[in-house]
């Protein structure tokens, strides 16, 4: 039974406009922005929506990303729903308040239009920026399509503001291929999003109010008095919020699916994994080409499937371990570099999840799509071939650079 539920209209837009629509429909009270490639047009769409009266948010046009997030901290502490978006060097400049956000338990939503990191100088897609900040304590969700960007932003507010989560969320979409890529997108009715999000109650735990003064973010820690225990309590609270988020993310996606008819895989998506002997692990917009490559490989008799990661933080350890438990070899495709381990960052995470299994499954790291490079169906076919050889007993090499000869 697949009821068509209140789909207002079909639009044709790029990923940055889809993100702006997702924000618009979530009715933030305050938006603060600073433009940076490839996020800039997202900022322009927000400004346009506000100028046209589609959005009633206050737009704070500030002097840099450090101020962007600091301004929104204040707004969020005063009970406002907030939105922003940034990328690469902008995220780097935002890092100081970014670092403070999860500890303050501020339920913010910020889009990361992912881009490779300078240097060498480049202004194009890659996930090095988002992967570099994976340990800060923000929830990270990666989108595959323009439609998923739009849909994930209201879902992100629902997750962030859940009383048992209260953590900031990054909704990530690939710079260039998704940010500027144009596709058909269903725009949900405002009423559907309103009823999904329910009554706004953004920051019930620490709301700045001149009538009721309170201190937030007390000095704590140290080696004596109540410090150590208090600091541990804060950190354990963040970890607990993260772990609770796994279920909340699933529930929020299910609720969204019921209301819109669009059921996105909340943590991981398993594609043709039922009888798969070999698996690719993917993240973000690369996954569409990977699915096409898997379909072609299946026609040639190769039993290959895909595990796509949507929620990267918290890392869905058990789900990933279970999904990969029956295959004979794994190829993980990253769009960023883990310099410390000489592999892709998602690869390293998957290795950690696999340790929960009683068996040892050979795995290999593939790195592609850096600084705007394309990961084509042919690249995925190469990765499938190499992973098949790994399953057949050939030694793993670390890592395979997919665009090395492009």
């Amino acid at each position: 039974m697949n009821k068509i539920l209140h789909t207002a209209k079909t639009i044709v837009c790029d990923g940055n406009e889809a993100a702006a629509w997702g924000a618009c429909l979530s009715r933030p009270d305050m938006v603060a922005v600073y433009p940076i490639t490839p996020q800039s047009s997202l900022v322009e769409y927000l400004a346009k929506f506000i100028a046209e009266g589609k959005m009633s948010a206050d737009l704070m046009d500030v002097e840099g990303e450090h101020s962007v997030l600091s301004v929104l901290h204040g707004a969020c502490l005063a009970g406002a729903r907030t939105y922003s978006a940034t990328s690469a060097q902008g995220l780097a400049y935002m890092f100081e308040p970014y670092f403070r956000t999860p500890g303050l338990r501020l339920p913010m939503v910020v889009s990361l239009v992912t881009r490779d990191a300078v240097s060498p100088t480049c202004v194009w897609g890659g996930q090095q920026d988002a992967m570099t900040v994976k340990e800060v304590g923000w929830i990270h969700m990666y989108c595959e399509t323009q439609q998923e960007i739009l849909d994930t932003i209201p879902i992100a507010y629902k997750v962030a503001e859940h009383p048992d989560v209260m953590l900031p969320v990054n909704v990530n979409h690939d710079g260039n291929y998704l940010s500027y890529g144009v596709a058909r997108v269903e725009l949900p009715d405002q009423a559907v999003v309103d009823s999904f999000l329910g009554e706004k109650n953004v920051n019930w735990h620490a709301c700045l109010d001149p009538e009721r003064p309170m201190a937030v973010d007390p000095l704590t820690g140290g080696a004596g008095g109540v410090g150590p225990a208090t600091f541990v309590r804060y950190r354990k609270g963040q970890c607990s919020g993260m772990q609770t988020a796994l279920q909340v993310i699933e529930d929020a996606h299910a609720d969204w699916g019921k209301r819109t008819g669009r059921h996105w895989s909340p943590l991981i998506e398993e594609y043709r994994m039922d009888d798969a002997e070999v698996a690719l692990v993917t993240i973000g917009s690369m996954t569409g080409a990977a699915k096409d490559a898997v379909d072609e490989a299946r026609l040639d008799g190769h039993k290959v499937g895909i595990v796509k990661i949507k929620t990267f933080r918290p890392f869905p350890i058990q789900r990933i371990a279970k999904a990969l438990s029956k295959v004979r070899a794994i190829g993980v495709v990253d769009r960023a570099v883990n310099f410390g381990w000489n592999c892709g960052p998602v690869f390293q995470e998957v290795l950690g999840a696999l340790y929960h299994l009683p068996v040892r499954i050979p795995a290999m790291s593939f790195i592609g799509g850096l600084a705007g490079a394309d990961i084509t169906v042919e690249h995925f076919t190469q990765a499938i071939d190499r992973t098949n050889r790994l399953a057949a007993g050939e030694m793993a090499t670390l890592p395979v650079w997919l665009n090395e000869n492009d």
Partner: protein
Amino acid sequence: MHEVRLHGRGGQGAVLASAILAAALVEEGRHVMAIPAFGFERRGAPVVAFLRMSDQVIRRVTNIYHPDIVVVIDPTVVRAVDVYAGMPANGTLVLATSKPHSELGLPGHLGRVAICDAVGIAMEIFKRQITNTIMLGAFAKATGLVSVESLEKALEHTDFRDAGLRQNIEAVRRGYAETTVIELGKEQAA
């Protein structure tokens, strides 16, 4: 699925044209994926935009390497880049030019060429060499894959208003009306 590559120069609106074409195709119920190729964009530099169209959902979010249709909205860009790169046999070329096709030195494997004096039309309508919407009309005539009506509807959803919108609607109509389509395969066979 059709794969289209548009060639132009920075500032001529090749990327906007691909977005308008995408909207027109969705208007007709199709799925699209339009991706601008990127570089250090600046006015006058050769630019490329890609567009995939299909009756099915399009999953791959990648550039296009083997376009069966190439649209060239700037007559001079053919001297700067290989606009035929990766084209399979029997592809369609839609070219802005004032020359007859016999003088173009076209490669032998093309199936069809459509030519339109887009610069001439643009100078009459816009008084500037803005050829993008004219070449959308030429695309419609050359391929039959989209109607002029859908292109006009898509234009109405852009930021074009009033006189600008009327000029661009005229551009699409004249592009359609003033494009000559030559079936090269048939010509060679005859």
